[in-house]
């Protein structure tokens, strides 16, 4: 790892060099009243004043719908065309927050814990993450409660900390990061000794992960699930904006003799998620589904995959149409 300084015009030149290299750049863009990751060509298109993008950056490595393979039926036979990793473009994710970058580890753990997942690995391999440490936060943010921090570098190839002069501390963390710097190395100057901590938002932890985990181990039959989820409408918004939610459905898209098998985002909050063909549903009530969501993230994943299924980004609380607040709910479980 190496730390450098880059000034404001250097940043713009470097961005242009990345753009000119043919890599796709996805960055937060303000459009239609919200900020979300979109393809950009120039640094001035990147959104400035906002706390969090509405959607996480997850879709860049795990698209909402992705073709697993396609097929064609010819004279009673079937020809398969495999997913081609070469079809994935080299991509730079720019201005990713540390809570989004931290989501790549649990995502990869879910998809690769046993057999490996060719699709997400093709995306991860060709993705370079340039994160921005956080100088601001809002009441929904709680990364410091789930092993993260406003300057956490997990999942980042380069992390930039924007200084008061508009320049940045550049922490070059991986070989991919070095390769990105190598596109225009001249704009990177020696580290000036700026203190990164000075530029990070102060965000005290709201709960202890260990305490929550211990409480959850005994909470399966608690009344808390029903109390907390009584207003849940099962819309799945929390799962769709989440940087680590990965549950999926497999669907078929057919036109005549040709078709594609497609992996689509799904959510454990939907009633149909576990419904058997017989009509029997092991998670019949919304409270059971809410319990599954919390236990999966804070109990099952830590035990099975050694990762927490939450990075504290707070999106689920911001997106919830009935104001369910994960931070409040987790805190109340910890305090029980």
């Amino acid at each position, binding site marked *: 790892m190496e730390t450098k300084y880059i000034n404001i015009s250097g940043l713009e030149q470097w961005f242009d060099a990345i753009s000119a290299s043919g890599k796709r750049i996805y960055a937060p863009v303000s459009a239609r009243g919200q900020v979300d990751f979109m393809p950009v060509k120039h640094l001035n298109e990147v959104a400035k004043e906002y706390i969090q993008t509405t959607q996480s950056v997850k879709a860049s490595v795990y698209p909402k719908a992705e073709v697993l393979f396609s097929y064609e*039926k010819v004279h009673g036979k079937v020809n398969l065309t*495999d*997913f081609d990793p070469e079809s994935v473009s080299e991509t730079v994710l720019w201005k990713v927050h540390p809570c989004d970058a931290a989501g790549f580890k649990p995502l990869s753990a879910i998809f690769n814990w046993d*057999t490996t997942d*060719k699709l997400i690995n093709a995306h991860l391999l060709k993705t370079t993450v340039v994160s921005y440490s956080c100088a601001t936060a809002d009441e929904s943010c709680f990364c410091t409660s789930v092993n993260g921090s406003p300057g956490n570098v997990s999942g980042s190839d380069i992390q930039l900390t924007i200084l008061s002069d508009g320049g940045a501390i550049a922490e070059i963390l991986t070989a991919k990061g070095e390769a990105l710097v190598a596109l225009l190395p001249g704009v990177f100057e020696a580290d000036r000794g700026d203190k990164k901590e000075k530029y990070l938002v102060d965000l005290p932890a709201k709960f202890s992960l260990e305490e929550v985990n211990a409480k959850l181990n005994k909470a399966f039959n608690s009344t808390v699930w029903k109390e907390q989820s009584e207003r849940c409408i099962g819309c799945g918004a929390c799962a769709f904006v989440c940087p680590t939610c990965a549950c*999926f459905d497999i*669907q078929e898209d057919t036109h005549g003799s040709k078709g594609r*098998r497609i992996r689509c985002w799904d959510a454990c909050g939907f009633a149909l998620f576990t419904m*058997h063909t017989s009509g029997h549903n092991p998670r019949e009530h919304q409270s059971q589904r809410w319990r599954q969501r919390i236990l999966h993230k804070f109990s099952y994943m830590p035990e099975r995959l050694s990762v927490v299924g939450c990075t504290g980004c707070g999106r689920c609380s911001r997106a919830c149409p009935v104001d369910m607040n994960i931070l409040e709910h987790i805190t109340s479980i910890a305090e029980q």
Partner: protein
Amino acid sequence: MSEKNIYLPYLMTIDKVTKEAPGVKTYRLKFQDEAEAAAFDFKAGQFGEYSAFGEGESTFCIASSPTRKGYIECTFRDTGRVTSGLASLEEGSTMGFRGPYGNVFPMDEWKGKSLVFIAGGIALPPMRCVIWNALDLRENFKDITIVYGAKSVNDLVYKSELKEWTDRPDVKMVTTVDPGGETADWKGEIGFVPAIVEKVAPSSENTIAIVCGPPIMIKYTFPVLEKLGFKDDQIYTTLENRMKCGVGKCGRCNVGKLYICKDGPVFSREELNLIPAEEY
């Protein structure tokens, strides 16, 4: 070698179609690729994702025994989009298969023991794989008892095999139908599976009970077995939660800390006690 796409199915030819009961069919499938056929192996208890191209994938056990080489069989009821797509295929058609997935019945550990198979309705197929596996290695086991029940005589699957098992002197076969499901010439039992198990009262000594059926049947059969002296590590079942990927990623069959598709589908009752009963 490039990374394997775990979602890409094997292409299979439907070699033989057997009509089992109203809406229920058994397909014998053969691999179209010889190298894939040669490399394929599975054990009793494993399952797969079967696909009708154009409709999607559905999860069933492998219903044939691993002792019968060169093909696999699946038995399914025409109930949803995929199964009706599969049901409309004919002999010679192509379908997809991914697998084998999941864990296995510990048949090696059961050597020298008696086996009691208890199955209800469309849950005989996962049991049939184990039954034939045991019968093909008959000398490895002591007494073999099969209790199988369905709603009506018409709903019983594998009718010719039921007869074969009934006729075998080395198998105790008990067939039952729900009250009202009998025909005029029905010679089997009449009553629900748990009650018939109680009546047959197999000894629990040095015996393994393998139970498979709808959740309600399992719920009422366990206490009967308990009464007969079966300990939790003598009782096995196979679960079929809803699944999509079959390989522990899609999240659908996650129950408690377990994935039915990876840690199961085979569980001893001892292992089942570790996961919340309301979720399977």
